[in-house]
């Protein structure tokens, strides 16, 4: 079966994402320069709770208006430059999601949207879910949030198109640097419950 790796015989399996051809990264960077002011987005809903879809609709409404950056939601993956994957890929939606991926012209940018898209969200380890977009297709940009606010969506697109650089960096905390401070030390003991 294409794209499925068997872990424990046929009892337990795991999906293998689509492999990109080697020079695709160079093509994607070139594409980014071209679609900076005119990006066509196609929304692929892989089985989320549709809060993310409504927030994407909200992002195109007058208050947040993504069209002013040239971002337009199109009706068919044939016209799409950016594929916006939402939802933690349910088993039934894996085949349509892969069909959408093939239907879009190369090179294409894949954005995974919302907690479910990034890493499966609250349903990440369920039996009927493959758990996140990057389990089936190679992802370029992650927009976390459950659901991400329209402002976060616009920020996500700006990062995807390279207009803004990302603020969040992975952090390695140093917990042992200081002792943990006790709380409310100035309250006399006897009235403390």
């Amino acid at each position, binding site marked *: 079966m294409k794209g499925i790796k068997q872990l424990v015989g046929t009892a337990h399996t795991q999906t293998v994402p689509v492999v990109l051809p080697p020079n695709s990264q160079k093509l994607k960077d070139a594409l980014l320069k071209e679609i900076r002011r005119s990006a066509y987005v196609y929304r692929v809903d892989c089985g989320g709770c549709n*809060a993310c879809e*409504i927030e994407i609709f909200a992002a195109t409404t007058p208050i947040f208006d993504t069209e002013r950056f040239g971002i337009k939601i199109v009706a068919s993956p044939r016209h799409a430059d950016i594929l916006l994957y939402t939802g933690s890929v349910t088993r039934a*939606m894996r085949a349509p999601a892969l069909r*959408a991926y093939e239907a879009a012209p190369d090179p294409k940018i894949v954005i995974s949207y919302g907690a479910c898209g990034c890493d499966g*969200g609250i349903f990440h380890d*369920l039996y009927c879910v493959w758990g996140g977009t990057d389990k089936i297709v190679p992802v370029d940009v992650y927009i976390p949030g459950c659901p991400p606010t329209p402002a976060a969506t616009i920020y996500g697109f700006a990062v995807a198109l390279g207009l803004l650089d990302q603020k969040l960096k992975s952090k390695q905390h140093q917990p042992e640097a200081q002792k943990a401070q006790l709380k409310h030390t100035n309250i006399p003991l006897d009235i403390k419950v």
Partner: protein
Amino acid sequence: MTNNTSEQFHSQPQAGRIGKNYVDGVNHFFPSAIIDEEWQTENQVTITVKMTSLVEVMKWLYYDQGGWLTVSFGNDERSLNGHFAVYHVLSMEGEVKSFVTVKILVDAQSQEFISITPTIPAAVWGEREVRDMYGLRPVGLPDERRLVLPDDWPEDLHPLRKDAMDYRQRPQPTTETETYQFDNQLGNDSNRIVPVGPLHITSDEPGHFRLFVDGEDIVDADYRMFYVHRGMEKLAETRMGYHEVAQLTDRVCGICGFTHSVGYSNTIENALSVDVPFRAKMIRTVLLEVERLHSHLLNIGLSSHFVGFDTGFMQFFRVREKTMELAELLTGARKTYGMNLIGGVRRDFLKEQRVKGIAMVREVRQKFSELVEVLLATPNINSRTQGIGILSKQVARDYSPVGPLIRASGFKRDVRIVHGQSLEAYGSVPIELQSMEDGDVYSRVMVRVREVFESLNVIEYGLDHLPAGAILTESFDYKPNKFALGFTEAPRGENIHWSMTGDNQKLFRWRCRAATYANWPTLRYMLRGNTVADAPLIIGSLDPCYSCTDRVTIVDTKKQRSKTVPYKAIEQYSIDRKHSPFKL
């Protein structure tokens, strides 16, 4: 059996036992049918009935006593009483308003139970789901197709059985492509197929509609849902504690999340008879109405988008942003409020939030009324919405749909008013039921418009008269194997939850039926006879929430009315052959 079974059966009301007359009625008309009777709350009773008399009892309660079948589900109680169990929950809306749950025990070896679908078609989805999830075979169920589980799920694995599998196990997919066979009851195979597929731009969620068309006219429609089935019920039983499930239920559906979480909290609170402080109830009521606000605005906007009136879509969404800001002000997040815990809410409305909230509500009311006038004055809106996708009264009575869909067809069904007393603070809030008669897309949109004004009044009243007192009570302890119903009125109709507490600080069984679950089967009848261009509009007017209904199927009515339909089908077929309008 005596023939006058249809008029209301009266017996002496007992204090604290609303609905006792139904139990007595069953005893009277069907002696020795009831094995065991158990009361969960003042108006919720569960009667365990013999398998043989199930169909008559249900028929009596459903058709004769004005009951509406809300949900049917299974439960693996082999560890409790050595049997599987199938529950049918009826919301009795005759003179006495209460909930009656009819339970039957299914033998663990034979794993078969009598299906009530031939008499009450609305039960078919519940029973098909019981077959999928528990492997119990409903005898007499017309539709053998798989419902909940995806096409590539192995045949013999039934996830919700306690001993079946670990909730994280992902079996090997059995097929590459979809194998769901669609049946085209009215047309023949000369009809072309229009795939309004899982990824259609107008449907904001995945669901595959197969319209059998001739040219532009829809001959018949069939649909395959369950693209969004994630298996939440198994998750609630395994990994999550009581409070985490409250967060999970917030994410059942992206639009009516809070209604589900209130519904779930009510089930545990009813089961353990926790008395939630009145302030928490009022906060929950206010937030329920805020959610209805933004959901109705969303649907009215989408309806004008489907009709091609994009300006209307954008203007309504502009006003809707104000309601999202209101939600963010009150709860800290635009959509997933995450306020509910068992026993109350975890965040309070401060004075400054309440003042700003009331100002926002007034602004939304003014802008919304302005836009509604514009929408109704738009040319050819009426021609696009009136007389389209009509839901007849007979079909409505058979499949017991809920929410604006049934209120637009003239039935007075709204949990906030019918069962208002036992639902949050609706008893003490000024609200009345909106309904219209002719059941087409236009009247559904109008019902939603009027309900928006109702919600605005309730929110303003709620924020003004917020009672003092605590917002959370934790003075109760969890007793195992207690179960109860929780019900709320979501924007699309009544959400029914049922849960049974387990013995390891986790739920034993949690069942959630969302509003659109009941509305889906009627879609087939609303689509027939319309054109392809109207399909998205009709599907949109049903205001579908696919993920609510990640367990949705089609209702196969052919078998239900076996004696009439074939005649109709033959008559239709004969029309086709001789001088069919399609033939030319």
